[in-house]
């Protein structure tokens, strides 16, 4: 049980680092680390399929896309980087305190588990859920992907000077 | 013609007709004016035809049940027919007057639409037997008065229109909350059902207070009266129709309809309301004596005379109630006439400040004489109708034992004489400050003379309105 706690703490530190990290690259790395930690957690909570998804998609694919996108962007000059980091540091200096405070309160109150979760370990694994139970949501995912694509087209396409 | 169809015609003709008027207005100006007059006078004629059946004690009523208790009920009892006849007569004369008055100004279509719609909603309100539809027509008149006060579209005018609209709607909302309290007790909005439930039991004070706030704001009595003088900037037929003769009578009518014919007020209110009325009468009479703008003086005088009507209704004496009903008729005629004369003077001399006017009697004799006649009727000088109504309101105050209030109203009546004579002298007598203006249009002067002559006729042949009012009071008090 304590390993889970440690993993959770690691995850929070990684997220804090992503948020407060100076350059975008560091932020993507931080994101990748959090995904890895989450997938390890999932393994521990014996839901392997979800963990595999998490690892491959979030840690792998998304990080690659982010890194490629960032590489296209003109990197900040050193001087600007310092200004940006100082500004971020100033803005988020209270964030860690806040997180710790929240952790203490949660711990102190103690999330009550006064009931026995009944259906956690349902037998069917991800595949059956995905295809048989939640087929309609697939439809939803398709629409979201289309919306995302359209959004990218609308927002980021330069307006050709006709 | 069965009474039911007459009743339906009185209400529906102006309401529906109002929307035809602007359409016809596109075609021809003249036709639209005549059409507007036709709609208004049809409802007048229909209400006249309703009088014999009302007098015979038969209450014709139309009821269509709607969900949630908002059923559409029209009852033509004596009080309703009396109010309908009075307001539709005054409106038809005013519409006749506005043919020549409004022709000088833009957006005339909207004017006629609103005036005819106003009369329609007035008829609806007067005949409605259900609190919700009473409230609907009440708000409809507030919308109309908002559009009409802002008729000249100047910035200040629109500001005043909004002020009037806000104050009256605030009062209406308070009244709606009062209605809901009553609905809570009786479970229905129909006046007859409410009347049964409140046979002996006095109404909860909170409901009375809230409804009173609505009534006082609509009839411009003391705490809520400032919107009426400010609305003096509207065109004269509007101020005549809305702020003198008909709109301000709505509050008083609802007071009679609710607090006299439907449920009974307990004794404390019969002392409190006259006090409010007394302060309002004195304050507005004082203000009228000091004010210099012609229309504002007359508006303040309306506030003061409305307080007299409230006195009559609220003193729990039968003679007072009959007196107030007569007062509504006489004051409507006279005050309408005063505002229309003010309109003629204002249109010809382009001057509103009475200190800069004078000597108009030489060039506008007929207007001056009718103005004087209406002034006498408001003061209560005998051959004119105002005398009987003022006497009976006084007698009502005295017979209900409140002699102190009667003496304060005596002082109010003296102030009335003072400011009305001051007004007449400043406008028509004395030397003219170079502003010599003739009264151009025959139509306007004849409508003003109609008012003066009818006031005189009401004074001399007081028997007919008196008996009608007395019968209405007997019917209201359930005797």
């Amino acid at each position, binding site marked *: 049980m304590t390993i889970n706690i440690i993993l959770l703490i690691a995850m929070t530190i990684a997220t804090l680092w992503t948020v407060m990290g100076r350059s975008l690259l560091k932020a993507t790395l931080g994101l990748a680390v959090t995904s890895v930690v989450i997938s390890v957690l999932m393994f521990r909570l014996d839901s392997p399929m979800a963990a595999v998804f998490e690892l491959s998609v979030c840690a792998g694919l998304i990080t690659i896309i982010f890194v490629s996108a960032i590489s296209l962007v003109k990197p900040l000059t050193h001087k600007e980087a310092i200004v940006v980091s100082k500004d971020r540091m100033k803005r988020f200096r209270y964030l860690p305190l806040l997180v710790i405070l929240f952790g203490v309160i949660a711990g102190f109150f103690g999330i009550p588990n006064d009931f026995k979760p009944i259906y956690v370990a349902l037998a069917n694994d991800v595949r059956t859920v995905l295809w048989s139970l939640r087929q309609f949501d697939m439809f939803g995912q398709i629409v979201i992907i289309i919306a995302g694509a359209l959004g990218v087209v609308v927002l980021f396409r330069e307006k050709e000077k006709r | 013609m069965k009474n039911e169809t007459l009743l339906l015609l009185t209400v529906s003709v102006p309401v529906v007709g109002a929307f035809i008027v602007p359409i016809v207005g596109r075609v021809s100006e003249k036709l639209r004016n005549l059409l507007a007059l036709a709609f208004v006078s049809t409802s007048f004629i229909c209400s006249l035809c309703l009088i014999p059946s009302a007098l015979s004690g038969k209450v014709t009523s139309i009821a269509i049940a709607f969900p949630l208790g908002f059923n559409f009920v029209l009852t033509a009892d004596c009080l309703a027919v009396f109010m309908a006849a009075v307001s539709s007569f005054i409106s038809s004369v005013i519409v006749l007057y506005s043919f020549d008055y409004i022709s000088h100004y833009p957006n005339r279509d909207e004017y006629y639409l609103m005036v005819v719609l106003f009369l329609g909603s007035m008829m609806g309100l007067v005949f409605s037997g259900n609190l919700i539809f009473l409230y609907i027509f009440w708000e409809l008149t507030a919308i109309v008065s908002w559009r009409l006060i802002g008729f000249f579209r100047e910035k200040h005018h629109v500001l005043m229109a909004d002020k009037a609209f806000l104050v009256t709607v605030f009062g209406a909302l308070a009244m709606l909350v009062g209605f809901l309290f009553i609905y809570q007790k009786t479970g229905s909005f129909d006046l007859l059902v409410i009347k049964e439930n409140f046979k002996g039991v006095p109404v909860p004070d909170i409901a009375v207070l809230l409804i009173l706030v609505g009534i006082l704001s609509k009839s411009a009595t003391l705490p809520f009266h400032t919107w009426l003088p400010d609305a003096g900037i509207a065109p004269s037929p509007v101020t005549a129709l809305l702020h003198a003769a008909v709109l301000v009578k709505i509050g008083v009518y609802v007071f009679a309809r609710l607090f006299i014919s439907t449920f009974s007020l307990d004794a404390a209110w019969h002392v409190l309301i006259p006090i409010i009325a007394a302060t309002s009468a004195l304050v507005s009479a004082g203000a009228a004596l*000091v004010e210099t703008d012609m229309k504002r003086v007359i508006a303040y005088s309306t506030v003061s005379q409305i307080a007299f009507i409230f006195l009559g209704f609220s003193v729990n004496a039968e003679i007072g109630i009959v007196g107030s009903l007569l007062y509504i008729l006489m004051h409507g005629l006279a005050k309408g006439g005063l505002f229309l004369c003010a309109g003629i003077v204002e249109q010809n001399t382009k001057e509103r400040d009475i200190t800069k006017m004078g000597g108009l009697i030489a060039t506008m004799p007929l207007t001056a004489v009718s103005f004087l006649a209406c002034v006498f009727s408001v003061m*209560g*000088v005998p051959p004119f109708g105002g005398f009987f109504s003022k006497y009976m309101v006084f*007698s009502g105050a*005295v017979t209900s034992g409140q002699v102190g209030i009667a*003496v304060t109203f005596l002082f109010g009546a*003296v102030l009335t004489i003072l400011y009305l004579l001051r007004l007449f002298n400043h406008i028509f007598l004395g030397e003219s400050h170079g502003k010599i203006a003739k009264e151009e249009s025959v139509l306007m002067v004849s409508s003003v003379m109609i008012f003066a002559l009818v006031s005189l006729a009401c004074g001399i042949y007081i028997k007919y309105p008196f008996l009608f009012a007395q019968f209405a009071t007997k019917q209201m008090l359930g005797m």
Partner: protein
Amino acid sequence: MLTNVLLLPITVPTAAALLILMLPKKFRAAIDAISLFGSFLILLLSILLFKRNLSYSMPALGFGIEFSLRLYHFSGFIVLAAAFFVFLITLYSNAFLREKSYSKQFYVYLLLSLAFINGAVLSDNLVSMLFFWEGMLITLFGMIYIGGKRSFKTATKAFIIAGVGDLCLMLGVAICFYISGTLAISKLHIPISGIGGAAFILLMMGAIAKAGSMPFHTWIPDAAIDAPLPFMAIVPASFEKLLGIYFLSRISLDIFEMSPDSWASMTLMIIGSITIVFAVSMALIQKNYKRLLSYHAISQVGYMILGIGTLVPAGIVGGLFHMINNVMYKSCLFLTGGAVEKQAGTTDLEKLGGLKKYMPVTFICYVITAASISGVPPFNGFFSKELVCEGALERGFIFYLAAIIGAFLTAASFLKLGHAAFLDKSKNGKLPIKEAPIRMLIPMIAIAALCVLFGVWNSLPLKLFIQPILGQERLGGRDFSGMPHNSLLVVITIMVLLGALLNHRYGVKKHGSGLKAAEHIHHAPVLSYIFNKAENGYFDPYNIGLNISYGFSKVAFLFDRAIDWVYNVFIIKVSKVFTAAARSLNDGSYKSYIIWSLLATGAVVIFLIKSMIGA
């Protein structure tokens, strides 16, 4: 048929007035003829109706209000007197108003007010009496207004004063209905204790306002200058007196049960004596013929009120007799004033003088009526004043003293007037003045003759007109006609008159001309200060009342502006404060939105958990 004969006194004059109204202005002769014929017709009618007891009533309206007329001795007498004087005045004004532009309007108003006075006197219901009573406001305003360019101010003043009086009357009538439940004058018997007292005060104020006594008198002197002269001769001199004193006597005799030693009669007597003394002293110092006469009209009312106020048979008979006498000589004096004004062109005593030679008939009529007003023995004024003095003496010496002072000053002022106008050598150059036209002289001569007749043979008016009003039991079996019984009083009166003559002689010798005969009184140390103040309207209740109401209305206007301020400024300020607070919630930075949302979620969750678990 007989009953609606009673309507004729009201309908005939109104019909005549409307007929004249129809005629265009230039048919002057026709208008004069119609008005004369109309008034003559009414005179005949009233003579015919005089001795009859009739009553007529339309179906009652409700709440005691009904249009009911009742002709009995007293109202018949008043209608007859009114018709008689209207006829004479119309005859007089046919000549007087010849070149005036407003003559048509004047006749219309005259006939209308005659109709109103007949209506008021005949009506047996308080409200229908009030209806006609207040109707006279309009004709009063109309008649003064047509007098001249500037006269509308006085017309307004008269209207307001009379209006206030009538409103008090209206309230009084309402209280009477409240107490007794009926408005029929003949059936009313109200004790004057408590609310009844208030009713008496109000009705009495209405009556004396109409009669033109002290607190409500100030419009009459102004009207003397501004209003057309026939108006002064007919309304303040006769109509007002007739109607006012008629109603006052109906109040004190019929409507209220008043005993002689009650506070009500005391107030009446005080008002009467004050009016006598103050009005006549004001008259003394006047420099204008008509203003002097108008002040006398006010002081003579004081005698009537004093007489009726004593509630002693002698006093009441004296008061009523004085009423009819006063109407006679007062209107005749005004007619002489009119003649002087028409012929000499002015009524200002400084410019008048030596008219004796040129207008002998007017002079003779003036002497007769002046003598009768000052109470010189053979004339009617003497007998009625004696009766009033006898009544006053019975009730208290102070009232008798006031009557005597009044007599003295009246005599002095009329001596001054006669001397200044007729006897002094003429000051203005326009010497060749002709005598007034015959149509003006006839009414003067007729009335002067009547004054002599009512004086010498006073049992005729007393027995025929006055005494039947009180009826035998109230008179206590005494007959007041013939020589006054109390010879002591007669001696005192004669001595007073001689004193006035001596004082006049002394004044003339001291100050040179007749006009300045009363200078020594005018400039006496204390009196001069009061006279100057009174002359420019300092004590004028009308001005005081106006100032009070203007002051009140200024305060009321401030209060009204304060309420308006609340709407225009205060509510907007308050809403601005709240709006600023409400808008501070989203200041544009998304961070604050996030914080607000999270805090609110926390609050909601805690609230839900606490209350759900707790429940």
